[in-house]
């Protein structure tokens, strides 16, 4: 990407992208399909809850998280087993009821718990890593309209970093797809206005 275009507003602010609001999940899904078919790659759909069928409408790939979690869970169980074996057989063998200290059966419950805790942490932390969280600042989070997503709004945003990005073209496409509002998002977006709106 040698000749990457950098978009700026007339006042010289760096452009993050363009966002559009849609009235409801149905409109949102249709619009997402249109954006997908138009061939954009750096874009996202924002909704207060995971909209059914959105993965398909956006043409998303399945996440690799389950593989990561499976590997971590099994490693956790292995670590747990070996650790107990070390403690029970090598570090501090306690013979009771004349039972061998290297039996594996008694190690199962704690091995299981080790596996569970590794699985749980890797599922949660893996989700954060894949999603790029925590990230406490984002150009979109400075937009008043965008903050409504956490309540009942539905928004699609296309980033300026997308190769096919063209502010006017994106705006026209959104409007054709039935957007109720289209807004430009800048990197150093509007500071919170200390004034009552309307």
């Amino acid at each position, binding site marked *: 990407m040698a000749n990457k275009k950098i978009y700026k507003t007339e006042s010289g602010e760096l452009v993050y992208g363009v966002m559009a609001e849609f009235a409801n999940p149905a409109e949102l*899904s249709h619009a997402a399909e249109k954006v997908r078919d138009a061939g954009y790659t750096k874009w996202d759909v924002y909704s207060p809850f995971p909209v059914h069928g959105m993965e398909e409408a956006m043409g998303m790939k399945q996440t690799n998280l389950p593989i990561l979690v499976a590997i971590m*869970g099994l490693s956790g169980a292995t670590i747990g087993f070996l650790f107990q074996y070390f403690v029970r057989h090598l570090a501090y063998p306690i013979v009771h009821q004349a039972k061998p200290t290297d039996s594996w059966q008694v190690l199962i419950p704690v091995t299981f718990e080790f596996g569970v805790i590794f699985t749980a942490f890797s599922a949660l932390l893996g989700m954060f890593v894949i*999603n790029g969280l925590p990230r406490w600042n984002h150009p979109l989070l400075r937009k008043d309209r965008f903050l409504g997503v956490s309540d009942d709004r539905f928004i699609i945003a296309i980033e300026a970093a997308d190769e096919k990005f063209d502010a006017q073209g994106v705006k026209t496409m959104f409007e054709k797809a039935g957007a109720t509002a289209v807004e430009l998002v800048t990197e150093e977006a509007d500071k919170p206005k200390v004034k009552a709106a309307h």
Partner: protein
Amino acid sequence: MSAINPDQTTAARLAGMMRAPEPPRVDDPVTKDGSLVEDPSVRAPLVLGNRTFNDVTETVCGYIEKGPGRWWMPAFGLASAVASITGLMVGYLIITGVGVWGLNNHVDWAWDITNFVFWIGIGHAGTLISAILCLLKQKWRTSINRAAEAMTIFAVICAGMFPGIHIGRVWMAWMLFPIPNSNAIWPNFSSPLLWDVFAVSTYATVSLLFWYMGMIPDFATLRDRAARRLMRQGDSAPTLPIVGVRVDQLRALIYGLLSLGWRFSSRHWHTYEKAYLMLAGISTPLVLSVHSIVSFDFATSVIPGWHTTIFPPYFVAGAIFGGFAMVLLLLIPSRILFPGMKDLITLRHLENMAKIILTTGFMVGFAYAMEFFVAWYGANAYERDVFIYNRLMPPFLAGEDGKYAPYWWAYWTMIACNVLSPQVFWIKSMRQSPLVIFIVAFLVTIGMWFERFVIIVTSLHRAFIPGEWGMFYASWVDILTFVGSCGTFLTLYLLFTRFLPQFAMSEIKNVMPQANPHWEGYGHHGHGHSTGAAGGSHAAHHAPQAPKEGI
């Protein structure tokens, strides 16, 4: 209402100055609040009162932003006063020694372990609702899972205290964990007591992760609402009395940090849902394993009355039974104290939980019967005597030898509360009445405490040799420690209702009919929008209203 511009209404609501209007309450003779639909082809609505997405946000966030009501402060004061008794009793115990309890050489486990198993059992309902009902795609779980998960964490906190303080020398509690030390002593990994340490601490950790993960989107909602109010109110925003910080600034900061910058992206949702499903998948065997391992503490011993293979499933069923009872004990008063909740926790939810109580009550009853069968069929004289003369036989039925069970009243309390009282749920009107459900849930909670008391104390007080027979009498410290633990539980729960979202908002929105892109209200697939007002106004694009009857 009609004279106000809808924009102003929305602005007022966003500013936290106005609650969403109460919808007219339907009171149908058959479906009651509209959720008890009998027709199997009709899906009962999960959210009542034609609620929009915004109404759900308003209801749930409103109680955090404006406070739950005047009752909260006195309730919290009372609960935390009771909770402080725990601190006093534990302090007294540590300073003086375990002799302040009623334990003795015959009954060396009593209320401490009874309370531990009681609380850890209650802690099972939360994960059951979040994990197992999630895997079974039971959508009604969305309105109760958050409160149940919170309750789980608090119950596990209460449970975790008891093994910690019953070990005698509390300052040696670290030896429960496999930590390298100068004596080169390691714990015994073949002991169920050590498995228990791992099972309970894993369970507490995973439940906490699960609970937190579910709350991330809701924290983001609270953050955004605070941020928007700050933008709108500016300098007129309310401030805290002494420090002079704006309340919403504090909210935006704290909820913002907790939300980790969640921004409701569909790509994030995709990974999030996968991770949530995996947590549910791993929590399901975990929740079943925890009480199984707790039961190993007893089942692997040789004490008659404990040495039973039925213990693991019996304990798990009992835990679900007792846990659901506690969820109902908390949610039924919540429906009255937080009126907006009646749209989210419908009578159908309560009825479903009543049915689970009935089912698990049967499982527990079956286990009680099976224990007797095995005691008889196993032909072990000690075990038979434990069941008949340690538990069952009341003095007025004693034979010519005059032998009877001194703790017969505990055993029969357990049977009456756990096996008999849920039977009222066979009658439809009973399992649809919140008052009856509350009473039964209360009885079940008492019964489940007595179940653990019966298992532990009645088995121990008369073991093999008559020379080691003796009674257990609870001391005042025993009683007050338990009362204090109830206060601790209630205090934590009240704090939860005050500062954290009591419902999984994003999950509830997701099960509302209008969340489905193919909902009939949106017309045919593929057609463009027809909304007249382009851009601008927020109020114009409210999500369409749900139909009156469920879909």
